[in-house]
């Protein structure tokens, strides 16, 4: 199982220009094995773009992403998109497809797929066509699909965005299990309570720039950058009324 070294994951001077718009600008960032990081920031701050460029889906316009010093895209990583895409086949078959593409075969493939689906609470829907599942169900299925690959880093783009409170706390529990299995987590979210409970560190983005990276308690009590302070002032009341699984 243990394969080539992956960590640290480093972003150096990462800049991404999309359609003439600078989505992220000169971001430096290091991620070590087992870390749990929440990327926060307002809509359009560049959170999703940062995750996609780290995951290797878009090439940076400047700067580089290095996995243990190498520019080659690492395989032991997975991502759950803000809007996951499912193939026109059953929920179970979607997970099995991901496993097949990563060289898992035979009975192990079926067993791992079933296990992953069970862990996100979708067993009763395993045979249903994935595309007709609700948004929240698809999001959980995407989490199962990513996790079944047993990645060493998982990028989660708003994993609880369209979930009801019960499903959100279920997903939070799953994220805890993923971390317990030794997987590093990089997650974006607008649920500050979730970030607080799940992450060890907060990375804050504002208009494409990284303004701070701070331990989670410190970030919420005394943010280091004025942008984050303003964000927290504006966002906290909204967050309190949002469907969070537990009160902080």
């Amino acid at each position: 199982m243990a394969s080539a070294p992956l960590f640290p994951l480093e972003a150096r001077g990462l800049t991404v220009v999309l359609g003439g718009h600078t989505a992220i600008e000169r971001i430096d960032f290091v991620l070590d094995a087992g870390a749990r990081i929440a990327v926060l920031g307002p809509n359009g701050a560049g959170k999703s773009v940062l995750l996609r460029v780290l995951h290797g889906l878009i090439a940076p316009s400047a700067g580089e992403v290095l996995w243990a010093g190498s520019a080659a895209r690492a395989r032991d990583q997975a991502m759950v998109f803000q809007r996951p895409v499912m193939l026109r086949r059953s929920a179970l078959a979607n997970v099995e497809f991901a496993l097949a593409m990563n060289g898992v075969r035979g009975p192990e493939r079926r067993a791992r797929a079933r296990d992953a689906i069970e862990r996100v609470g979708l067993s009763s829907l395993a045979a249903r066509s994935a595309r007709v599942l609700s948004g929240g169900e698809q999001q959980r299925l995407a989490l199962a699909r990513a996790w079944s690959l047993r990645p060493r880093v998982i990028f989660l783009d708003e994993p609880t965005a369209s979930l009801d409170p019960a499903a959100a706390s279920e997903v939070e529990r799953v994220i805890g299990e993923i971390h317990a299995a030794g997987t590093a987590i990089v997650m974006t979210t607008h649920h500050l309570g979730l970030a607080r409970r799940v992450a060890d560190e907060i990375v804050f983005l504002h208009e494409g720039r990284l303004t701070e990276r701070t331990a989670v308690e410190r970030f919420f009590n005394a943010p280091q950058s004025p942008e984050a302070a303003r964000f927290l002032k504006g966002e906290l009341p909204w967050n309190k009324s949002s469907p969070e699984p537990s009160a902080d």
Partner: protein
Amino acid sequence: MHDILSSFALALSLIAGGDAELWRIVALSLEVSLASAVFACALGLPLGGLVAVREFPGRRVVIVALNALLGLPSVVVGLVVYLLLSRAGPLGSLGILFTPRAIVLAQTLLVLPIVAALARQFVEDAWHEYREQLTSLGVSAVRAVPTLLWDLRYSLLTVVLAGFGRAASEVGAVMIVGGNIDGVTRVMTTAIALETSKGDLPLALGLGVILLSMVLALNAAAYAIREWSARHHG
């Protein structure tokens, strides 16, 4: 008017009475059209898929050429295949001119651009939507082609049926390379053309009715399948 009506009645009685000549023509038509559609899809679907997902120099030229080939004049294809297969031609030694194989070859060439161009369009749209997700799962662009084709199976069925329909209703090329030889290469379209000019309206009308019903049935089937898949697969 009376003539037409009585011809029509005769035509229906040919169909209903299981006229041997009529049904032999229909069977040959179905056979060659089905074979052409299968060959054209076997080549055209992967080809269209690859053009959709791969970046390569001259890609735009290929796409424009594919789309232009959609309007390929059938008689020109017939002429080219004739020249290829004629005794002095490069494939003359095969000796298949004026056989059903020559018809299959001409029809395949006519249907191939349709299948490839439509597949390219469908796969490219899907690739746009699936690209990041599939890449994230470790799927390369080339490996994505069969996955996308399978995911689009219900939409592509319409393409396959369109290809079959075009093959079955082809006349110009088939006349040139098949020759409409009674009992050998006489298919529905060439028979209709010839029997009409000879004045045997009942046979022509009978074949026309069958051809039309076939095309209608195919389109109804394609429509029903798409409706069904939209409900069951989203």
